[in-house]
Structure formats: structure tokens, C-alpha cells
């Protein structure tokens, strides 16, 4: 596809109230573009989980989003502590979230499994002490 839409978002790490703004904005744009609501929901959930992870586990990061006629690509990158054992982190229910994060309603250990479930292609790269990059792709066409 010749023309794609590229978006960049900063994900602030110090204000929990702002978490989800990027995902909310992407949801709004996809709605305006007339994308199928069921697909929008999958994109929204996957991106929101990744955005929340960047906030609660890595003190914020950035989101790069590209939308073309075939797919939505989301890359969420942070310079947080990284994930020592990705296979373990991917397990349902595994979470290192603090008590404070749980009191805010998160930290059930379902984020990464949900991202994988709702995306058509999911990649995660993490280096301990350097940071984590999550790539989510959702096809817009059946």
C-alpha cells in the first residue's frame, strides 16, 4: 500500500492517570477510518496491555504505530529493567507487579498472554538492564 499513517506517542512513566492515552487515540483513529469494531477491539486490548506494562514495569516508553490498508503495526519500546525469563513472563498469571500496582487494578499476569492472543503476530525482545520492545501486528483484512 502506498500511503500509510504513521503515529508516534510518548508514554509517560510518572503519571498513571495518563496510561492508555496512546491506545485511546489509536482506537479513535481506527474508528474514524471505519475499521471493523471487532478488529479495533483486538488492537485496543493488545496495545493497552502493552502500554500499561511500559508504565507499571518500565517507567514509560514510546509507541510507534503504523496503519495501512492491510494491517496495524504497533511497536512499544521502553528502557526499563527488561525481562529475565520471557517464557515465564508469558505464562498466564505470572506477575511481578507490586502491591501498589495491584491496588490500582492491574497485575493479574494476563497482559502478555492477552497481547499474544489478540494479535496476529506478536514479538517480544528484552535485554535485562536495557529494556523491552513489544511488536504487535493485527491484520485488517480477513
Amino acid at each position, binding site marked *: 500500500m502506498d500511503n500509510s499513517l504513521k503515529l508516534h506517542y510518548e508514554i509517560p512513566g510518572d503519571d498513571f492517570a495518563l496510561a492508555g492515552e496512546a491506545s485511546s487515540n489509536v482506537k479513535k483513529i481506527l474508528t474514524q477510518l471505519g475499521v471493523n469494531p471487532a478488529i479495533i*477491539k483486538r488492537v485496543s486490548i493488545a496495545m493497552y496491555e502493552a502500554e500499561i506494562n511500559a508504565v507499571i514495569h518500565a517507567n514509560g516508553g514510546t509507541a510507534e504505530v503504523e496503519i495501512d490498508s492491510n494491517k496495524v503495526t504497533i511497536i512499544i519500546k521502553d528502557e526499563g529493567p527488561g525481562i529475565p525469563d520471557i517464557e515465564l513472563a508469558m505464562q498466564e498469571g505470572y506477575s511481578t507487579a507490586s502491591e501498589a500496582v495491584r491496588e*490500582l*487494578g492491574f497485575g493479574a499476569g494476563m497482559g502478555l498472554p492477552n497481547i499474544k492472543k489478540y494479535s496476529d503476530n506478536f514479538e517480544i525482545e528484552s535485554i535485562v538492564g536495557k529494556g523491552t520492545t513489544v511488536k504487535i501486528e493485527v491484520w485488517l483484512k480477513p
Partner: protein
Amino acid sequence: MKLEKIGQILDAELLNGENCNIDIEVYTACGSDLMSDVISYGHEKDVLLTGLVNPQVIRTAEMMDIKVIIFVRGKRPTECMINLASEKGIILMSTKHPMFTACGKLYSAGVSGGSV
């Protein structure tokens, strides 16, 4: 069931009625203070009952296409949360009943928990 009837059953106060279309029908609901669970299991729900008060409750409802949030046990959202919800067309209500009673009243009146 009409949203208005939900309001009567729970003796709930509408917090942003002037900014939303409140003439809607609701069929299914879920109750949780854990937004992670709402994201994982709260599909196809019209109403979320919760005792949690922070902006991520509104965000979660937005992502899940939940139309109505009912805060239980007399909890009230902040002005900032009300504004965010109104912007997204999400209806906010508050009831004095605790979670168990509020859910029980709605369930008895025919609101479904949806499929497992």
C-alpha cells in the same frame, strides 16, 4: 432492560447524564475491582460494576466497549474521570449498595453475566 430501570433498582445516581445518551438497553454486566480481569474476561458486557476509582477504570471500559460503569458502595469518581468518561460517551453511575448486593439485585432482575 432499560438503563433507567437499572438506575431505579440500584437507587443509583447518574453522574454524567447530560453528556451521554442514556436511553439505552443493557443486557449483560460484570463486577470486578481488578481491571486486568475485566480485560481478560469482560467481553461483550454492557455494564461494569466496580469499587475501584481511578482513571484506568474508564480506560478499561473504553477499550472493552463497556457502555456503563456503576461505582458501588457510594464511591464517586473524580471530576477528571467524569470528564474522560463523558468524552468517550461512557455513562457513570453511583450506588450506595455494596458490590455483592448491587450485582445480586441486577442478576435477580434479569441482567445476565454473559457466557463463560
